C-alpha cells in the first residue's frame, strides 16, 4: 500500500470545491443514506478524538454496508480503529496513537491486524496530524514544523515529508504534506438542516478537518432550526458549505462520549476489551456480530448496550455543567 495520500495539486483542489453545490439547501438524510455517500477506496477523516465525539453510528453503518478498502485518518483512534480493521472496511489508519485507551492496555485488534500485515497503522506525531489537516484546510500544499525531526517517527515518513532550511533564519525545519481527505465524518451536538454545526466543549481538529476535506458528512444529536443557529453564530464550528449531508442520530457517538450529553459507556468498553483479550479473532468476530450485524437499527444497537449503561453515561455526561 502506498504511503500517505500525495499532496493534491492546487488546480485539482480548486476544481473539486468548485464542482460542489455549496448553496444553503436541505441536506437531511437517513443514517444509511449518509453511509452510502462514502465510496469504496476513499480516504475518510474521522472527527472528534479518541473516545470523544466519535461518529460511531456512521462507522457502524459503513461496517454494515461492507464498505471496502477505505483509508481512515484521525488525530487519535480508540476502539473505532479496532472496528474498522476487524470489520475489514479499512486497509489503513493514519493516526498518532492507536489504542482503546490507556486503562485497557495495548489494543489486541490493532496488534493482530498490523503484525500480520492485514492492515497498516501509519504513524505521525499528534501535532503533525493537526498541521497536515490545517495545511489542507488553508489551501496550502504543506505546513512547516519544528517537530518530528531526529526521531524514527520522522524517519519512517521521510518519503513523504521534506527537510528544509528556512530562508529567513537558516534554521532546520520539516515540511509536512497537506492532508485533504475525500470525506470528513463528524458528530456534533446540534446542527440545522443546512449543515450549520454547533459543538459544545472540546473542538479537537474538526474545524480543520471540515475545511481540508473534499466534503463533510455530519451526524448530529439533534437537528435544530436555522433561526436557533443564527441566534448564536459564534458557536458555529465550521461553514455549512463544507457539508454534504446531515443525519440525526441521538447517542450517535456511543459507546464513546458526546460532551455535555453522555460520557463513554465504560462498562461496554470493558466488555470490548474483555472479548478481544483471549482469542482476538474470534472475540472481535463475536463482538461485530452481536453489536454491528444483528441489531436491525441504531436504536436496537443502543438497546444491546443496555439502558442502564446509557443512563449512567448520560448522568455523567450532564454533570460537566454541575458546580
Amino acid at each position, binding site marked *: 500500500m502506498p504511503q500517505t495520500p500525495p499532496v493534491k495539486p492546487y488546480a485539482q483542489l480548486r476544481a473539486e470545491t468548485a464542482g460542489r453545490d455549496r448553496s444553503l439547501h436541505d441536506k437531511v438524510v437517513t443514517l444509511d443514506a449518509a453511509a452510502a455517500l462514502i465510496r469504496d477506496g476513499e480516504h475518510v477523516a474521522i472527527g472528534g*478524538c*479518541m*473516545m*470523544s465525539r466519535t461518529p460511531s453510528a456512521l462507522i457502524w453503518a459503513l461496517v454494515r454496508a461492507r464498505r471496502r478498502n477505505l483509508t481512515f485518518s484521525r*488525530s*487519535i483512534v*480508540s476502539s473505532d480503529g479496532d472496528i474498522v480493521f476487524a470489520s475489514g472496511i479499512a486497509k489503513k489508519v493514519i*493516526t*498518532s*496513537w*492507536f*489504542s482503546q*485507551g*490507556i*486503562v485497557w492496555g*495495548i489494543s489486541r485488534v*490493532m*496488534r493482530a491486524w*498490523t*503484525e500480520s500485515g492485514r492492515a497498516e*497503522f501509519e*504513524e505521525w*506525531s*499528534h*501535532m*503533525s496530524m*493537526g*498541521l497536515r*489537516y*490545517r495545511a489542507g484546510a488553508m489551501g496550502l500544499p504543506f505546513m512547516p*514544523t*519544528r*517537530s*518530528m*525531526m*531526529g*526521531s*524514527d*517517527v*520522522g524517519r*519512517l515518513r521521510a518519503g513523504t515529508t521534506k527537510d528544509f532550511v528556512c530562508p529567513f533564519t537558516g*534554521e*532546520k*525545519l*520539516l515540511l509536512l504534506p497537506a492532508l485533504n481527505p475525500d470525506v470528513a465524518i463528524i458528530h456534533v451536538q446540534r446542527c440545522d438542516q443546512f449543515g450549520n454545526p454547533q459543538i459544545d*466543549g*472540546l*473542538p*479537537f*481538529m474538526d*474545524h*480543520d478537518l471540515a475545511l481540508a476535506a473534499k466534503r463533510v458528512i455530519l451526524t448530529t444529536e439533534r437537528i435544530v432550526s436555522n433561526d436557533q443557529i443564527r441566534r448564536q453564530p459564534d458557536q458555529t464550528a465550521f461553514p455549512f458549505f463544507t457539508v454534504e449531508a446531515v443525519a440525526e442520530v441521538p447517542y450517535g457517538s456511543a459507546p464513546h*462520549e458526546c*460532551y*455535555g450529553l453522555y*460520557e*463513554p459507556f*465504560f462498562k461496554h468498553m470493558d466488555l470490548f476489551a474483555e472479548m478481544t483479550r483471549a482469542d482476538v479473532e474470534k472475540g472481535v468476530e463475536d463482538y461485530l456480530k452481536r453489536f454491528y450485524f444483528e441489531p436491525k437499527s441504531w436504536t436496537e444497537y443502543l438497546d444491546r448496550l443496555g439502558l442502564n449503561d446509557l443512563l449512567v453515561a448520560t448522568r455523567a*455526561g450532564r454533570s*460537566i455543567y454541575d458546580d
Partner: protein
Amino acid sequence: MTSLLQRNYTSSELLAVMASRTLADGQTVFAGVGIPLLAATLAQRLHAPGITLLFEGGVLGPFIVPGELPPSTNEQRCTRRANMILPITDVLLLLQRGYVDIGFLGGAQIDRYGNINTSFIGDPAKPKTRLPGTGGGNDIASLAKIVVAMKHEKRRFVEKVDFITSPGFLSGGDSRARAGLPTGGMHKIVTDLAILGVDPASKKLRVEALHPGVAADQVRANTGFSIDFAPNATVTDLPTGRELEVLRQLDPAQLYTA
C-alpha cells in the same frame, strides 16, 4: 535502610510522589493520563498550587476532581474547571511557541540518551509488538523539557531503543540540536528506584539520587547499560503521609497506582 517489604506504598505510588516533586510552582506542565497526571495534580495540591496543566485534547488549566480521573486527556472530565478549551493543534502549538516548561511522559523503553520508544518492540518492519505509538509524545519531547516516570527494569532501560518515538538527546553531544531540535530535551527520569538526570556534556543519563532503601548495585542490575552516578548523588526523602493521603484521594480506585 528501609526494607521494600516494610514500605507502606506501592511502586506506582512512589513513582507518582517522586515525580510530583520534580515540578515547581508556577510552571506550565503538559501531562498525559496515568502517573504524569497524578503527579502533576499531587504537586498542584501540595507544594505547587500555581502549576498550569495542559492536556493534549485541548485543555488549559483544569482542576481534576478527586476520584474522577479522566480515561484519557481527550474527554470531558479533562475540562473540569478549566481556564480555556481550545483545538488540539493549537494546544500542541503552545509547545512550539515555547509556552510549556515541562512535558511529562511515560514510556515503554528508554535508552542511555533518554530516547523513548512507545511504537515498536523489535524491528519496526516486522515488529514483535506494535505499541500504541507517539500521540503527542514526539511533539512534547521535540519541543519541551521532559520528565519521564517509569518502572526501573532492565527490559525498559536499554542500550538502544528499538525505535525513537520521542527524541531525547539522540546519539548524545549536540546531535539533538543538529537534528533541528535546539530546545528542550530530557530533564529528569523518575523511576521506582532512583532519580536520573543528564550529564551536561555527553548527554548520557546518570543517577542523581537513590530512593530510600535502594542500593546503587540494584540500579545497575536493573539498567540495561552501564550507568554513571552524579558526583553529588543523594538519597531522596520518603513519601510523606500527606503525599500518600492526597494521592489516594485522587485515585481511590487505584486505577494507576495499584
